[in-house]
């Protein structure tokens, strides 16, 4: 099938847990590839979006300049962007640092922490390392996001329902069991 819509996925400041949840759809992934063609995604290890994508799944918020760059790239190349999981929708665990000034965070992590061994007393500063942002931003505070799927991670069924509904143009069915978190 030549004209299958394309799907891109990425993990920004996330833990790849949401991507693991995508894999948890198990053999339904075979049905999924009937519906879509995967563009950039950690699943196929394609590093750059090649063509226009119908859907972009974004895991994680933005903690550094590279995250911002990638998110911008996704926004430019995807018709629909979905914030997937609590880090993308709210900043999640990485955003715990938001109440602490960046300088203090770096010092605690690399200089003063009780388990730190850093005899040269320097902060990592290779030009290859992207600069951190002043705080961790949920995706919708950086670019427009079309949908939000909460959960840590959203369950495989939740992701499946959302994707199939979007790709087949049918109304989404998210029963209570899929969106309760206790």
């Amino acid at each position, binding site marked *: 099938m030549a004209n299958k819509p394309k799907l891109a996925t990425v993990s920004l400041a996330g833990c790849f847990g949401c991507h693991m949840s995508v894999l948890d759809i198990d053999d339904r992934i075979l049905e999924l590839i009937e519906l879509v063609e995967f563009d950039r995604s950690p699943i196929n290890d394609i590093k750059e979006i090649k063509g226009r994508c119908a859907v972009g799944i974004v895991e994680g918020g933005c903690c550094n300049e*590279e995250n911002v760059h990638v998110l911008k790239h996704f926004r430019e190349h995807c018709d629909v962007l979905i914030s997937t999981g609590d880090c993308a929708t709210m900043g999640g665990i990485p955003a715990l640092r938001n109440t602490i000034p960046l*300088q203090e965070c*770096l010092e605690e992590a690399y200089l003063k922490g009780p388990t730190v061994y850093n005899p040269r007393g320097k902060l990592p500063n290779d030009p290859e390392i992207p600069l951190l942002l002043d705080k961790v931003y949920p995706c919708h505070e950086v670019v427009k996001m079309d949908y939000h799927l909460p959960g840590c991670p959203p369950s495989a069924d939740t992701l499946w329902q959302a994707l199939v509904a979007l790709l087949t143009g049918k109304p989404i069915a998210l029963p209570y069991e899929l969106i309760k978190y206790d």
Partner: protein
Amino acid sequence: MTDNASVSRQICGNFANDKGRLMDILLGVQAQAGCVAPEALDEIAKSLSMSRVEVESAATFYAFFSGAPRGRFVIRLCNDIIDQLHGMDRIVAAFRAELGIEFGQTTPDGLFSLEYTPCIGMSDQAPALLINSTVVTKVSTDMVHEIVQTLRVSKNLEQLKLTLGDGNNSHPLVRSMVNNNLRERGAVVFAPYTPGVALQRALSEQPVELIRIVKASRLRGRGGAGFPTGMKWEFTRAAAGERKFIVCNADEGEPGTFKDRVILTEAPGLMFEGMTIAGYAIGASEGIVYLRGEYAYLLPYLEDVLAKRRAAGLLGRDILGKSGFKFDIRIQLGAGAYVCGEETALLSSCEGKAGNPKTRPPFPAQKGYLDMPTVINNVETHCAAARIVENGPTWFTSMGTKSSSGTKVFSVSGDCSRPGVYEIPFGITVEELLTHVGASDTIAVQVGGASGRMIGPSEFNRPFCFDHLATGGSVMVFGKGRDLLAISHAFMDFFVEESCGYCTPCRAGTRLLQERLGRFLTGQAESADLDYLEKTGKTVKTASRCGLGQTAANPILGTLQSFRPEYERRIKTNGSVFLPSFDPRKAVAVASSIAGRESEQFGTQKGGVKQ
């Protein structure tokens, strides 16, 4: 320094270790010891047989109590929107320069503390401030210099040469520079008053007949909500309870409201008389006036009025010779909490607790003060009830409109030549009122304070009454050149500050709304923000627990309705993929300076964005 613990023990003793009087005990400790220190909390808890955390929750709730000593002179500058528009910034700068400290700090010599406070009920004579409980109005930068110099040398508030205000403001027990600015007296509240006439008339009737009279007058609550007073009295009379109470809400904290201050200054007898009549009507023998802490300067005077009424047989036992009818009134002073104007929060505060609203139902008519049936009415309502009994319901219904009989006392402030208090029959249109107050080129009127609504010229033909523009009395006038969204933002600041924090929709919602509205002021808004404000505003309105939260979104929901173009013209469309509120260069600036290198992606704040 006075010892906090021994002072606390002694004050608790003065109130017979009654935990219901915790507010007065805390006020006493704060006044005598300069703060309510941790040792004081321990001691009070022990004396009153309460848990420490109960005492602490009350002590930390109110703005006027402090855990650590503040300056001998605590200067609280009102930062209400009207004050902001009347040169508050210059006063702020003058105080900083004179004292060399920021707001929120105390001078090293322990003499002065600077603080901000929301509306202190002086909007018609802004900018205004409190020094301890002394009010200073129409503050100028020269006065700031004068005040600081005088207090620094004399260390005595009495030495401030403040000109005395009009009317009873110059009464020996008041001696305040506050002015009444009572521009128009009506037939109800500010008409000549002879003590005892209405009460005499009331005592000649059966209590149920009094309720019938008040119902026939169609009197509705003057605090803003407009509940029929007669019905409230009837419910309370019918409710079962060993004791019943009459409470007067004199906690007008709604920004731009100050009419109760003028009533308390010029017609307190009428108000007390209305309370006494209500007591007779419902079978109560105890009354409480909850006086906002900002009006503490009126306390000695009001106590004196009460003493004189007792001496004249208008309070106490066998009032006016009516055997078996006893009624007395105590004044409960507040301590700086807007939410206490909400009736159930006010009752919590009277009971000596933190001013948290209670869940309704049960309504105060069933379970109010100390869980006993309680009538709680506004200052103005008590006055009107007394007059209705004196002059009859037909006299009252001949004024005003069908739904809103009688007169209304308005507090008018802002851009007009005659700000002040006006008692006018209900039904007057906004336009007419603007003429009375000398306002021209008016672009908006805020009706009902921060929790009310902002209306534009297209609605100026609407009348003030419960069917159209209901108001507790606050009318703020904004003239040409004022930024209406900045004004709404100031109202949101107020709600963020005053939310008690009990429920999430109000605690978090007010903050979210304030932040999002701020984007319109800083040019960071996008069109989706309009939708966001609308949705979040509705959530705050529907899901909040008490009246404060339910009205906290009004500054935004109201302006979205009446002044949408004000929002729309500020929406930014820059063609960027990023939201206008996100600036990548700003976001990496800190890391860039720590690392000492430019952002690979976005350059520096000075440089252009690399693509």
